[in-house]
C-alpha cells in the first residue's frame, strides 16, 4: 500500500544522506588543507560550499512538497520534520568547514606556527562525532546521543585548553599573534561542528521515540 509514497520518502532520506556525505567531505577537505597548508584544497572547499547550500534548499523543497502532497503522519511526520531541521544543521556544518578553509587562506602569508595538538585532537574527535551522528540517524539509534554527549564534553575540554594555549602563545610570541588567533577560530569552528552533531543525534532520538528530553 502507498508504494509511491514509500519511494518518495526513501528518496528524501537518501537526499539527506547525500547532504551528510558532502558535508563530511567538506570538513575533511578543510582540515586536510589546514594540516597541509593547501591553498588549492581550501579554495575548492569554499567553491563547493555553494553546492552544499543548493543541496540543502533542494532538500527543503522536497520535504515541503512531500508534506503538502502526501500528508505524512506519526513516525513518517517526525522523520520529515527532522529532515527539514537537519538540512539546516548540516548546511551550517558545511559553513564551518568553509570558515576553516578561509582561515587557511588567511594564514598563507603569515609567519609559521606549528598547529597545536589540541586542534588535531579536536579535528579527529569532531569528524568521528559527525560520522557517528549520521550513522545513528540512519540506524535510528537512540542510544548514540548519550555517547556523543560524552564525546562533546571531551571536545569542549580540548577547546578550553586550546584557548589557554592561544592566550599564552599570543602573550609570549607576538609575531605569531595573528596566526594564533586564526587557529583559535579554527578550534571554535570545530567545537561548533561537534556541538551540532548532538542535534543530529537528537534527531535520531526524536524519530525513534517521538520525544527528546
Amino acid at each position, binding site marked *: *500500500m*502507498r*508504494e*509511491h*509514497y514509500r519511494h518518495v520518502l526513501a528518496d528524501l532520506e537518501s537526499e539527506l544522506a547525500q547532504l551528510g556525505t558532502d558535508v563530511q567531505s567538506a570538513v575533511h577537505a578543510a582540515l586536510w588543507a589546514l594540516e597541509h597548508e593547501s591553498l588549492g584544497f581550501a579554495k575548492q572547499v569554499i567553491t563547493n560550499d555553494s553546492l552544499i547550500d543548493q543541496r540543502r534548499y533542494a532538500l527543503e*523543497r522536497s520535504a*515541503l*512538497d512531500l508534506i*503538502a*502532497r*502526501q*500528508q505524512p503522519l506519526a513516525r513518517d511526520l517526525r522523520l520529515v520534520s527532522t529532515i527539514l531541521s537537519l538540512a539546516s544543521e548540516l548546511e551550517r556544518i558545511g559553513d564551518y568547514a568553509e570558515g576553516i578553509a578561509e582561515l587557511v587562506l588567511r594564514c598563507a602569508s603569515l609567519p609559521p606556527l606549528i598547529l597545536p595538538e589540541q586542534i588535531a585532537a579536536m579535528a579527529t574527535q569532531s569528524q568521528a562525532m559527525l560520522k557517528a551522528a549520521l550513522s545513528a540517524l540512519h540506524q535510528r539509534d537512540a542510544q548514540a546521543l548519550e555517547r556523543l554527549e560524552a564525546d562533546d564534553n571531551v571536545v569542549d575540554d580540548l577547546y578550553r585548553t586550546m584557548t589557554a594555549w592561544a592566550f599564552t602563545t599570543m602573550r609570549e610570541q607576538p609575531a605569531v599573534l595573528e596566526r594564533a588567533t586564526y587557529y583559535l577560530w579554527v578550534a571554535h569552528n570545530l567545537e561548533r561542528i561537534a556541538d551540532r552533531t548532538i542535534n543530529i543525534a537528537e534527531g535520531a532520538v526524536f524519530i525513534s521515540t517521538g520525544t527528546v528530553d
Partner: protein
Amino acid sequence: MSDVIAKRQTAEVASTPRVGVTVQTANQAADALGHKMQVEDFSLYYGAFKAISGINLQIVEGRITAFIGPSGCGKSTLLRSLNRMNDLIPSVRTDGRVLLDSTNIYDPRVDVVELRRHVGMVFQRPNPFPKSIFDNVAFGLRRLKLSKSELEDRVQESLRRAALWDDVKDRLKTPATGLSGGQQQRLCIARAIAPEPEVVLMDEPCSALDPISTLKIEELMMDLRGRYTIVIVTHNMQQAARASDYTAFFMMNEQRSGEMVEYGPTGTIFTNPQDKRTEDYITGRFG
C-alpha cells in the same frame, strides 16, 4: 491518435489567447515532455448558459492531471468534453478546440465511438455491466475480432494492470456485481484500459469508495502512469496532491461560468500557488 480520426482532421488553425489565468510551468512541461491533449479557448454552453469559459491547457502525455475546484465549477463538464461525452446531452454547444495529438476531436467528421476507444472513461460510481467479470473486461474488445486466446490474454493483462487479477482469477465467470465496491471500480478501470486507450478520464473514481479502496485506486493510477495519460476530477484535494503530477484549479466566475484559475505542477500548486483564489481554496478558506 488513430488513423481513423487523423485522416478526418481538417487543417484549421485557431488562435489560442491565454489571458487571466496563472499557468505556471505545466504548459512548458508539456512542451518538454509532449502533450497528449490540448484544450484551446474552449467554452461549452447548455442552451444559452455558458457552463465553462475560455479554457486553455495542455495535458502532458503519460502523466496524471487532476482537475480540482468547488462544486459547479465545470471540472466534470470539461472532463466529459475530452471524449465528447457531453454530446449525449441535448442543447450542448461548444466553442474552441480540443486536440488529441493533432486532431481536433470536435471536427464533425470524427467518429465519436472510435474517439472513445482512444479516450476511455471511468465514472464516479462503479458501473459494471450485469455480466461476468470476464465479459465486462472483454466488452470493448469484442469489436476487435480477436481470437479466443488473444481475447483471454487481453482480459488477463487488463486485470493484472488494474491490480485485480489475483482477486478474481478463480472466478472470472461469476457476476461482476458480486465484487466489493473497490474491486468493482478496479474492474471498471480494467474495462476502460482493455482497448488500450491513450487517455483515461476518471470522474471522481473514488468518491463512493472507502479509504483503503481509495488508496488502492491511487496506487493503481501511479502504476498506470507512463503507459496512459490520465485526467482525474476529484473533490478530494489530498487525493489530487497525492496522486497527480499536474493540477488545474477551476472556479465559477461572476457569470457562474466555470473557468480555469491556475494550472501547474502539483507540488507547486500545493506549496506555492500563484493565485490567491487557489491558495484560499486549498487552505480551506472557501469552497
